[in-house]
């Protein structure tokens, strides 16, 4: 009832606006009723008919006027005016189709770039997981290791402790990316999925469309619950949307799993970067992870987790409690948890998926697209300014006819609104088409393309609408500023541009161009810096050979091998691989340098320098097979490689890198000395050169290697140093693998160069995006410059003609016009260089061994800007030389 009361006035107002005739008719009827009643009364009082009517009409007064007042009482005029302005604005746009198209195109590009980046921010960083409820309270949970800045995984027992003790969290759940070979009929393919805790689907508020989620008992046991929930895409694509799918059996990594559920359409799991295709409970971890049964091992860190905070709890509060839990664990289990902490991260900084890697790039993009939008607005404002000169007469006439200045302002803003609304609509369309573009910039891995969709939800829409209003003000107020001093008397005389007026308008237009040049110069500098950085990062040696070494992975976990069989298989495969044509060396290693997996780490102590466990530094290490250093081309400075004799029965040995040798043995030859690894002494048998381990940007750091046989893994990476091209090597390798066991599959075979490229792909994304938008900005600025120079040439035809008549030749005029453009640009570049000098520091950690003030980058930007200026001025300058002096001077 109350809502109806409130809506009623709007219904009335709309009715009075859109059903004008009926509305007017009703007021007429009402007033006529009154008149008739008055006449009837007059007649009753004894007046004759004619007099009664005349008297009644006199008493009533002007019916039209009363009607008009009644209509006005409904507030119709304001809306009618808006309608008029809109109609008029559209007519103006139609009348200058070239102008309109250019202005709208500029705005679509400007607003579209913004909407696109907003949708990426929303879809990748802020609400990355469609269908998951209350993502604003979701945080990522990762471990920390004292003395290291990065995040680590968490062990299952620690996770259980967290789940039980965290009262600030509504839910804590595991979601660890994994992959599996999926065989359906004759086709085999790799898919990505998640290992999740049993509370997963309840915690994220997603109900399977078919079947059920997991039950809490399915968290427990070793390979105890081979059940799987599959994605909607997998269900449709590979199982033809079979409605009776529940209860069927599908082999994952060669283990039969019962399909217990199908996730709803539009749910892609909880990992930024890939669309998950299946979910298995943590009790199946051994089937998908190397390293054996880990659910009771507090030292085995492999879990990636999320927590949903209770309503009203801040991340800082929850972090405090979680830190206390970690401290307690550290006290209770010093052997495994010493120096280990737990940390909550906002979703957009999630350390274990692509959110964290894309964050710096997307942050920069916010600034970049804001610049592009400003440049586009400056272009449109300039176009409107030029047009407003043509409309001075019109505006003056309207003022003279009694329009108020506020009314004119409203008219101009309405025209701006039309432009920006079309721009915003087009911009949304651009964002819609570009929402998957982010994934295109990143390479597919393991044959699975990335999935990084932008999200266009109401928040993006609201931001877009906000931009639209902002643009309206920016582009609408500039011409309004122009009309603020219109003088009726002066302007009604014939329109001849007065000198002063022209100069001020020219000043304003030039100001716009300077702004554009300044902004696009900064973008160019940014793009050049990022490009320099990418070049440096890709040409820096990672410390191992990148060419002629190919890398893949042989997962014996997936094929269901136990440890003894896996050892035999690896030995046999190595023997066969060595005989392959073109293969010079081959080796296994548990973790691939620059890959996604994380290294083992341990507190270390050395002979003669033993400190209490609490003070021991933690060092990361890798498990590698014999010939690893020869295969990857990492130099051995002292000692020897591991051999087949360094097996599980032999004394433990280790090879340290150069930095570690320097730091722990102070430059003495460490060969023959002892190193304590995980509480056991190992003899150092060699010193290897430093290389890059996790990132191309890291500084040299202590690192060591142990023999794979003494710390075994069933799913190691395999490296071949070969003279064959990568595809031939892959085919030959697969043949050898299948000769041993046809059930064992190979992961993607890539060169180490490709591995380096993938590790640096965030830099590539940054370069590509900033260059694209920088290019767009420069083109927009070029258009702006062209517009201003063209206009000034057209305005100064008389002057040009005079100069020609006085003997200036074409070349001179050409120089003059281009010089005018260059002077404008120079102003913009100077300001841009000054501002850029400060702003490029924002690029901070995206830059790799490039100073934010790199003179080469500034020089390159200067060069490009100059070329664009000359290009933009050429056509108007050529037109200037074509001025016919006799004609101009006569007119």
């Amino acid at each position: 009832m109350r809502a109806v009361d409130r809506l009623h006035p709007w219904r009335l107002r709309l009715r009075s606006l859109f059903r004008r005739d009926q509305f007017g008719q009703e007021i007429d009827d009402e007033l006529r009723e009154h008149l008739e009643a008055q006449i009837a009364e007059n007649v009753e009082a004894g007046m004759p008919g004619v007099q009664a009517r005349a008297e009644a009409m006199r008493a009533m007064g002007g019916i039209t006027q009363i009607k008009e007042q009644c209509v006005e009482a409904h507030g119709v005029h304001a809306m009618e005016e808006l309608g008029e302005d809109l109609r008029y604005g559209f007519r103006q746009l139609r009348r200058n189709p070239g102008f309109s198209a250019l202005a709208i195109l500029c705005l679509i590009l400007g607003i579209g770039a913004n909407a696109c980046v907003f949708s990426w921010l929303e879809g990748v960083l802020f609400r990355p997981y469609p269908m998951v409820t209350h993502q604003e309270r979701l945080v990522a949970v990762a471990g920390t290791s004292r003395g290291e800045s990065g995040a680590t995984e968490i062990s299952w027992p620690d996770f259980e402790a967290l789940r039980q003790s965290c009262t600030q969290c509504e839910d804590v759940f595991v979601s660890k990316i994994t992959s599996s070979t999926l065989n359906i009929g004759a086709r085999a393919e790799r898919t990505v999925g998640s290992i999740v805790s049993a509370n997963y689907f309840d915690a994220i508020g997603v109900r399977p469309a078919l079947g059920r989620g997991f039950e809490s008992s399915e968290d427990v046991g070793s390979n105890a619950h081979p059940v799987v929930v599959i994605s909607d895409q997998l269900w449709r694509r590979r199982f033809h949307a079979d409605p009776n799918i529940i209860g069927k059996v599908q082999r994952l990594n060669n283990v039969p799993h019962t399909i217990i559920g199908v996730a709803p359409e539009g749910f892609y799991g909880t990992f930024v970067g890939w669309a998950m295709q299946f979910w298995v409970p943590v009790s199946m971890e051994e089937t998908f992870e190397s390293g054996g049964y880990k659910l009771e091992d507090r030292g085995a860190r492999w879990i990636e987790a999320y927590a949903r905070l209770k309503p009203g709890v801040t991340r800082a509060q929850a972090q405090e409690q979680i830190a206390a839990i970690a401290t307690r664990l550290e006290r209770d289990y010093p052997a495994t948890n010493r120096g280990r902490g737990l940390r909550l991260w906002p979703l957009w900084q999630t350390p274990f998926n692509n959110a964290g890697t894309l964050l710096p790039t997307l942050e920069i993009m916010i600034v970049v697209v804001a610049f592009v939008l400003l440049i586009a607005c400056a272009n449109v404002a300039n176009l409107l300014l030029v047009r407003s000169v043509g409309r001075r007469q019109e505006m003056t006439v309207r003022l003279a006819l009694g329009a108020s200045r506020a009314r004119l302002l409203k008219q101009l803003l309405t025209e701006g609104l039309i432009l920006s609304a079309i721009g915003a609509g087009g911009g949304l369309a651009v964002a819609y088409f570009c929402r998957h573009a982010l994934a295109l910039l990143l390479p597919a891995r393991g044959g699975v393309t990335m999935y990084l969709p932008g999200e266009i939800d109401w928040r993006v829409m609201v931001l877009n609408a906000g931009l639209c209003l902002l643009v309206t003000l920016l582009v609408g107020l500039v011409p309004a500023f122009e009309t603020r001093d219109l003088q009726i008397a002066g302007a009604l005389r014939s329109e001849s541009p007065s000198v002063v007026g022209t100069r001020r308008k020219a000043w304003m237009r030039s100001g716009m161009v300077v702004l554009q040049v300044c902004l696009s110069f900064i973008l160019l500098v940014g793009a050049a810096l990022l490009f320099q950085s990418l070049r440096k990062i890709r040409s820096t040696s990672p410390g191992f050979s990148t060419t002629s070494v190919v890398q893949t992975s042989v997962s014996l976990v997936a094929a269901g091998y136990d440890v003894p069989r896996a050892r035999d298989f690896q030995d046999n495969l190595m023997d066969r691989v060595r005989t392959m044509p073109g293969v010079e060396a081959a080796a296994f290693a548990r973790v691939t340098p620059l890959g996604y997996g994380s290294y083992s780490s341990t507190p270390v102590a050395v002979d003669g320098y033993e400190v209490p466990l609490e003070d021991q530094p933690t060092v990361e290490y890798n498990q590698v097979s014999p010939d690893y250093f020869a295969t990857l081309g990492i130099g051995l400075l002292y000692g020897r490689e591991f051999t087949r004799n360094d097996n599980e029965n032999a004394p433990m040995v280790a090879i340290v890198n150069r930095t570690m040798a320097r730091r722990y043995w102070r430059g003495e030859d460490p060969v023959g000395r002892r190193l304590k690894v995980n509480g056991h002494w190992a003899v150092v048998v060699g010193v290897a050169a430093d290389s890059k381990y996790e990132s191309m940007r890291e500084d040299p750091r202590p690192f060591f290697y142990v023999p794979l046989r003494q710390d075994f893994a069933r799913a190691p990476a395999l490296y071949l140093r070969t003279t064959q091209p990568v595809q031939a090597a892959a085919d030959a390798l697969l043949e050898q693998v299948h000769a041993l066991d046809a059930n064992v599959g190979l992961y993607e075979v890539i060169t180490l160069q490709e591995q380096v490229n993938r590790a640096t792909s965030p830099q590539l994304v940054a370069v590509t995006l900033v260059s694209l938008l920088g290019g767009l900005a420069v083109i927009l600025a070029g258009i702006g410059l062209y517009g201003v120079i063209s206009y000034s040439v057209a305005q100064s035809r008389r002057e040009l003609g005079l100069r020609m008549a006085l003997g200036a030749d074409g070349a001179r005029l050409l120089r003059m016009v281009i010089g005018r453009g260059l002077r404008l640009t120079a102003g913009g570049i100077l300001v841009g260089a000054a501002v850029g000098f400060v702003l490029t520091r924002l690029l901070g950690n995206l830059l790799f061994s490039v100073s934010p003030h790199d003179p080469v980058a500034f020089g390159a930007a200067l060069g490009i800007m100059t070329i664009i200026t000359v290009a933009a001025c050429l056509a108007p300058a050529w037109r200037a030389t074509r001025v016919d002096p006799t004609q101009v001077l006569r007119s």
Partner: protein
Amino acid sequence: MSKPSELVQGTLDMLLLKILALEPLNGWAISLRLKQISGDVLGVSVGSLYPALHKLEQMGWIRGEWRSSGNNRRARYYSLTRLGHRQLEKEAAEWNRLSDAISAIVNLREA
């Protein structure tokens, strides 16, 4: 017929609400009732009555609907809405406060 003064315009709204609070009426009946109540003191013309009614309707305080007015004729009858009742209470309270204050001043002067 001159337009009623500002004060009268304000009180007109309240008078109309009060009249319609008693029973739904059409414009003609309202004008009769006004004349009846105030005689010529307020002198409300047709030219201010109807715009005032439409303004009240736009505010959501009254609602107009076409009804039969006897002898085969139809007229627009206005009735008070729930919002209108609340508004009337507010304006009446305001009016009482004001008139109390004024009469207090007047009495003071006489004493």
